[in-house]
């Protein structure tokens, strides 16, 4: 079966900094890929290429369901069913909850007139079903600034889930979350597979990644250091390998391909 998404020889340089160097990467249909790597390894940069925010350097190729995509734009990526929870959360603090949920794709008629009622109603529903806001004090008009870290993260995840994604990318979603919030977040990720969709799950903590991922890819200084299917390796073996990567930059004999 052809992969849902594929990167071939993708590089990205910012001036002097080579953030990505010749990346080959793929996500299968209904597959959860765990992406590991140190700070600055290039994980977020790769995410932003997949969402059309960054354009890769010339020479790199991007395929979606086997089809070559030349200039992926943010709107196009979303149209193709790629949703993302950015590491920086991409929220607008002084705006209401509903404005954040529908940021960049407001419900509107063809003249651009906003469907305020619809957006408030949908946000109200999401608050109960997905975000688990039970407090009566939070409304679709609540300003995001007043939310806790976990709640803000909930907003970002909810936003990604709401728009019928095929592939959900979560960039360090557990960062700054409490234990119970982390639990909930990991359940979300597990639920993505159950729903028949794909995900890229980025997290520093291998204890978070290992249980939910089907396959694990390790990035190191802008290059893929190795990858393997989860059932090829125990958690302890993985931890040992990661130490190896930190020392040598490669996941020697890491199985997989």
């Amino acid at each position, binding site marked *: 079966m052809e992969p849902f998404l594929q990167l071939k020889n993708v590089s990205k340089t910012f001036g002097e900094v080579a953030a990505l160097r010749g990346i080959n990467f793929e996500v299968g249909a209904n597959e959860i890929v765990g992406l590991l790597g140190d700070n600055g390894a290039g994980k977020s940069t790769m995410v932003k290429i997949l969402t059309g*925010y960054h354009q890769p350097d010339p020479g790199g190729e991007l395929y979606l369901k086997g089809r070559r995509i030349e200039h992926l734009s943010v709107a196009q990526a979303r149209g193709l069913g790629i949703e993302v929870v950015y590491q920086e959360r991409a929220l*607008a*603090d002084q*705006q209401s909850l509903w404005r954040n949920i529908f940021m960049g794709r*407001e419900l*509107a008629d063809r003249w651009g*007139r*906003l469907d305020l009622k619809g957006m408030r109603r949908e946000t109200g529903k999401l608050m109960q079903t997905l975000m688990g806001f039970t407090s009566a*004090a939070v409304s679709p008009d*609540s300003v995001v600034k007043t939310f806790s870290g976990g709640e803000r993260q909930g907003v970002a995840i909810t936003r990604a889930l709401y728009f019928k994604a095929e592939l959900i990318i979560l960039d360090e979603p557990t960062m700054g979350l409490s234990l119970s919030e982390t639990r909930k977040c990991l359940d979300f990720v597990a639920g993505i597979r159950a729903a028949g969709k794909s995900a890229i799950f980025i997290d520093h903590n291998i204890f978070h990644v290992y249980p939910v991922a089907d396959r694990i890819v390790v990035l190191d200084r802008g290059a893929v250091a190795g990858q393997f299917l989860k059932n090829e390796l125990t958690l302890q073996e993985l931890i040992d390998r990661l130490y190896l990567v930190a020392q040598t930059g490669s996941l020697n004999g890491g199985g997989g391909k």
Partner: protein
Amino acid sequence: MSGEQVSLSPRRGGLARRMRKYSLQIGIVGVAFFIWVLFLIGSPRTFLRRDIYAAFMSSTPYFALMAIPLTLVIIAGEIDLSFPSIMAFGMTAFDVVFLTTHSVWLGFLACLAAGVLAGWLNGIIVVKIGVPSLVATIGTQFFWRGVVMVVTNGQGLGLTPVRETFLYPLLVGRIGGFFPAQFLWTIAFALVVWFFLNRHRFGAHVYLTGDNLESARLMGVNVHRTKILTFAAVGFAAAFAGFVVSEDVLFFWPTLGEGYMLNTLASVYLGGTSVFGGTGTVFGTFVASFIIGAINAGIVAAGLTGFWTNVIYGLIVVTSVSLQTVVSRRMR
């Protein structure tokens, strides 16, 4: 003020939340009322007669027309200081087209088009070249004023022929013998801009762009186009206001626009729009414009000289921006 109290429990439901949500609007209306009472006590003879109201309804629109779309630029996180020159640039376009075609209407259209062009150019310089809007629009302010002086050779233009056309009653006539037409135009501008800011996708993007540029871009908001459109709107309004001002006195002075900078900016900031972008209302700007206009009319009526007017204006700008900074810091 109750701001502090409310912010301690920002999520209390019902009335408290509504009050908080509309606190800026309530505050600005309160200020307007307070100032009005002050004038009423200070000079009841002037402020119980309706002439003074007719006077300030006719002169406030000169800058209120620009302050309303300028609110969009500032909510989007930018600033425009070039509009006084764009007022004159629009009239220069009128000047040229009118003298060649002898058509007042064509001249009027040229005026508006020149305003949009100048505003759009501001947007392009800021967005595509990346010059900070403060610097870019100070630059274009000088540039357009220079163009005006070169083209007109510093000479004014009498506008009596405009009086013969329908444009005159349409823009500066007295509706019902009392309401200046430009006052109604200001209300119309406010309604249109309010609609786009609050009921249209464009306005949603204006708020998002000014609130967090990076988030907006990540989520696919076309922040460049949004900013360019806000600058173009100010350009359009400046040309329109320039035409109204000139028509009202039936003369175009190449220095047109000088003296409008502070009134216009003060209206936006006093109206509660944040210097940092992301928040602000058309309603606040609208009411604040008339506060500034009333202070103008009131000070003159109270017998203070023009220099005192400047002192009070300056005080209001500094005070309102300070207040705004303090309040928004506290709400964080």
